[in-house]
């Protein structure tokens, strides 16, 4: 029995070490490839297909005006652009605000979902919007987002390559100074996009489509059957569908968009629970097709495997911690003290949104940040929180599976519009521009 437990413990440590090595490679890649990375100049490209932007919105009255105003300010030719706001059965002023914009601007269109059909989550709303789309490329932005003016040129340029099926831009936190949670989320985003996604793009692995600040070929999304409304992480689901269909996802670090991050631990819990459950759903669905796929190279398969399982890592760290402690106390083998250090490293390697502290730190440095580093040790808080979130998500999914429940309730993140003040602030406005 002890022998088996020892073996499991060693396996867990090896699994966590694989993630540690992966993130270390990503960090080195971001660090050493930064100078060689070609910065795309959107105004050099003549490639400008018709584009439809989908903005799903449910009770977003505090932020919808901000993104629609920005859509008008986009530098992409208006005759090739249509913006479709999907009013997902909002009960506040979202619909009225969007209609006001639509009256004044020809490129903006509002489609409504009835109270019976609406409120079933973002994928269902996007599928509804897809019926009205005319553009060759379909882009998605969440209602609380605020993109750069030339973001579409930067994103769309990737579609010149016929192998590219989807593209993803960078997400940056708008309301970073508001609370400790927004600051920690900003750090997570820095590690996740500036280093993680950037390195995956650079190494030819699997950059992930994040569900917003990105786009698809319309022909591809239609052939894939649109968004799967039963998935809570419809973005990860689509990423793998795209790869399995022999297309690529590209990440464009220069295409930046500000988001309004969750401001308290309760909202953080809700949002991350949805992400964790959705990611785990994808892991169960795609592990085997990924392994069997003949369209993917070995390194893409390995990266895809690690990406799919990333939300299991906090659970495995917790399990290894418990198992290691038990072995240590009841029957310590001579080598356990050394492996115990690996648990420590893994704890700190999984902080934040599963980006290790050094990845987050280097990301912040590459972004030219000056003072945010003192918060890095506090990412341990988010890791401990994620341990609970992921464990609960796995339990919930298992219970649903046993109960035969296929649909999971989509818990929407509420946006309070407190990020608006940073857009009025000239300094941030210059940065955004």
């Amino acid at each position, binding site marked *: 029995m002890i022998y088996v437990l020892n073996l499991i413990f060693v396996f867990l440590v090896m699994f966590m070490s694989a993630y540690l090595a992966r993130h270390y490679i990503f960090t080195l890649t971001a660090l050493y490839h930064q100078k060689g990375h070609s910065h795309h100049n959107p105004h050099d490209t003549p490639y400008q297909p018709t584009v439809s932007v989908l903005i799903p919105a449910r009770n977003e009255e505090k932020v919808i005006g901000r993104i629609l105003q920005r859509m008008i300010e986009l530098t992409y030719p208006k005759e090739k652009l249509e913006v479709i706001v999907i009013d997902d059965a909002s009960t506040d002023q979202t619909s009225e605000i969007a209609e006001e914009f639509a009256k004044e601007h020809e490129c903006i269109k509002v489609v409504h979902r009835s109270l019976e059909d609406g409120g079933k989550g973002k994928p269902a709303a996007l599928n509804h919007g897809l019926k009205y789309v005319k553009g060759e490329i379909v882009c998605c932005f969440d209602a609380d987002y605020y993109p750069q003016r030339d973001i579409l040129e930067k994103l769309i340029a990737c579609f010149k390559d016929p192998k590219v099926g989807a593209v993803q831009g960078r997400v940056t936190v708008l309301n970073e100074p508001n609370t400790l949670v927004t600051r920690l989320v900003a750090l997570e985003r820095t590690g996740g996009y500036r280093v993680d996604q950037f390195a995956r793009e650079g190494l030819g692995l699997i950059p992930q489509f994040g569900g917003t600040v990105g786009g698809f070929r319309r022909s591809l999304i239609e052939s894939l059957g649109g968004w799967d409304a039963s998935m809570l992480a419809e973005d990860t689901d689509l990423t793998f569908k795209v790869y399995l269909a022999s297309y690529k996802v590209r990440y464009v670090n220069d295409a930046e968009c500000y988001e309004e991050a969750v401001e308290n631990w309760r909202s953080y819990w809700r949002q991350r629970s949805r992400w964790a459950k959705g990611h785990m759903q994808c892991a169960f669905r795609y592990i085997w097709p990924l392994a069997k796929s003949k369209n993917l190279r070995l390194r893409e398969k390995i990266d895809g495997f690690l990406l799919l399982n990333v939300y299991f890592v906090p659970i495995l760290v917790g399990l290894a*911690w418990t198992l290691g402690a038990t072995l*240590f106390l009841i029957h310590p083998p001579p080598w356990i003290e050394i492996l115990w250090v690996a648990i*420590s490293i893994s704890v700190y390697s999984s902080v934040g949104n599963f980006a290790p502290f050094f990845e987050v*730190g*280097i990301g912040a440095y590459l972004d030219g940040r000056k003072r945010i580093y003192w918060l890095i*040790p506090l990412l341990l808080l988010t890791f401990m929180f994620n341990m609970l979130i992921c464990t609960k998500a796995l339990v919930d999914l298992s219970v649903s599976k046993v109960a035969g429940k296929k649909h999971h309730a989509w818990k929407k993140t509420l946006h309070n519009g407190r990020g608006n003040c940073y857009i009025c602030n000239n300094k941030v406005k210059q940065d955004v521009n």
Partner: protein
Amino acid sequence: MHMSVGIGTTAIMLLIYFSLHHMLNEVALISISVFNFLFVFLLFPLEGPLFRKVYLLVAGNIVGLIWYFIKSSFGAASVFYLGTDTLKIITVVIGPIIDLVWIVSVWSLSLSMLASAKKRNEGEGENI
């Protein structure tokens, strides 16, 4: 050049630690080695004067040593007052958090100092 100096400095310090192995346990040695590894390969390539980087690396090692001596002292005191078993439980349960607190903090602080120096230099450059 910077990397070579960093690797050399680390090698010298690790040789000293191994010669003091009777005073340092495996956990301390591994943790300090991890710190040195992350410092040399991730902070030495960044912009900044070599002297400052070596100074921060050595300072980090000193903090790590002090950390383990304090931890060992607490351990010895705990054995006296609480007994060996209680100390074992405390070490095992909170060990994964405690062992790397100094690494994350010192590494982040060093990065912050390098980033501030870079910003300052850029500012001076603009003024010129």
